């Protein structure tokens, strides 16, 4: 069954129950999200970044190293995202250093998403050199009008050209990494363009990911999320360790404000926080004790889309 659900609510419930059956406790988080910077240069229609109240900052390098060192020692195959609620490419060569460091320490699954606005030819070169495994461009539109109404502050033609340049440079160098994926978050404003988007990028050598829209913990409207849907244990709460730039480990990948702080990796280990204070949250999810969940989980509906997305693999040159 496709995760991008188009059927009736009973089908969706069945899908979610199947998804929940795969969830269990992990001794080390399978996915770690590291906020290398909280700064962003766009004001996207489906994001609350411009309303964020916590301070914007960059993660100190010593803290970043500590996090990567622990992952390298405990679970180097962990899916690591050196980004959270910001645009990591604003860090320029600081990001290159971070990526290179993670690869040199032996991390094998390093993933970044980006709005693509800073991805000129120079950046494309160092991204390929860094060893990054996957770069995902969040695009969310095909026509300039739709793209620029969603990705507010970005220019469609420039960003598309940036992705295509990366594909061309990668092919020219014969590089196998990073895998290039373009992401389309479905919403009322853009869903009529999803077919064009998919075909365009598959023909050019980029893989395509299509996902449902998030509410970011209820901070932006998402009519696709059904408040009456049978609730399941959230895959993000059970799999994702999300770390803010100041070291706070928060509830999950949508807790951008840090409403639930389980600990701080400046003075604690990821494992101790994950199997300690954060484990309380995980057990509440697994036991369906939803009424006692803390904010931001309590009223969140994003668990409905946390389980997956549609992926299409390009057969064209460039991957």
């Amino acid at each position, binding site marked *: 069954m496709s995760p991008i659900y188009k059927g009736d609510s009973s089908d969706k419930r069945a899908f979610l129950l199947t998804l929940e059956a795969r969830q269990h406790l992990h001794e080390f988080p399978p996915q770690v999200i590291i906020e290398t910077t909280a700064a962003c240069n766009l004001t996207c229609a489906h994001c609350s970044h411009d309303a964020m109240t916590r301070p914007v900052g960059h993660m*100190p*390098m010593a803290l970043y190293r500590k996090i990567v060192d622990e992952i390298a020692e405990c679970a180097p195959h962990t899916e690591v995202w050196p980004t959270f609620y910001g645009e990591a490419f*604003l860090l320029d060569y600081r990001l290159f250093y971070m990526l290179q460091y993670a690869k040199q320490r032996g991390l094998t699954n390093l993933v970044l998403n980006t709005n693509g606005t*800073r991805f000129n030819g120079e950046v494309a070169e160092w991204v390929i050199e860094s060893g990054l495994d996957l770069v995902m461009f969040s695009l969310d539109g095909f026509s300039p009008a739709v793209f620029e109404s969603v990705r507010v502050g970005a220019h469609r033609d420039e960003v598309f050209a940036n992705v295509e340049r990366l594909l061309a440079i990668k092919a020219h160098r014969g590089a196998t990494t990073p895998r290039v994926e373009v992401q389309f978050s479905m919403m009322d404003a853009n869903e009529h363009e999803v077919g064009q988007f998919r075909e365009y990028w598959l023909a050019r050598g980029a893989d395509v990911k299509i996902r449902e829209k998030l509410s970011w913990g209820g901070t932006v409207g998402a009519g696709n999320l059904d408040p009456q849907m049978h609730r399941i244990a959230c895959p993000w709460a059970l799999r994702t360790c999300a770390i803010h730039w100041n070291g706070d480990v928060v509830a999950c990948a949508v807790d951008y404000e840090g409403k639930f702080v389980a600990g701080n990796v400046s003075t604690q280990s990821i494992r101790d926080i994950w199997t300690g204070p954060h484990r309380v949250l995980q057990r509440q999810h697994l036991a369906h004790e939803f009424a006692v969940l803390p904010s931001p989980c309590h009223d969140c509906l994003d668990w409905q889309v946390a389980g997956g997305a549609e992926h299409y693999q390009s057969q064209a040159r460039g991957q």
Partner: protein
Amino acid sequence: MTPPGHAEAIVMTAHSLAPNPTSEAEMLEWKRLAAQAAAAGRPLQLRYFGSANQIAGYRLHYMLQYAKQAGVEKVALYSDGQFWIDEATDWLAECGVDEVVLEVAAVPAPLQERLANLAARSGPHPAVTVRPTPD
């Protein structure tokens, strides 16, 4: 004058350490000079005099590392030391740069501490020279 037996250095001054419209051309020029220096067996000098922040210095790191990986035998960084925040000690030790020349009127205490930290971390490489600011 270049001493006998010593190849004359290729020199580049970095103007932009943060992304801007000129930075891509600057990096292309650095890569071209690195290839030229490697092919000719000549030293390569990067000169940067200016301020620093959490982001900018890492561009220097990349440029120096790139030149060493391109095969330049001797790469030197000339600077007034303004770039040298605490984090720079690590990347100076890691990037492979052979020599750091600080042209300063005086060495303030924080810079003195960073010099000591670099020496403790990486020993004699890179060599660090402190000399008066040229007229």
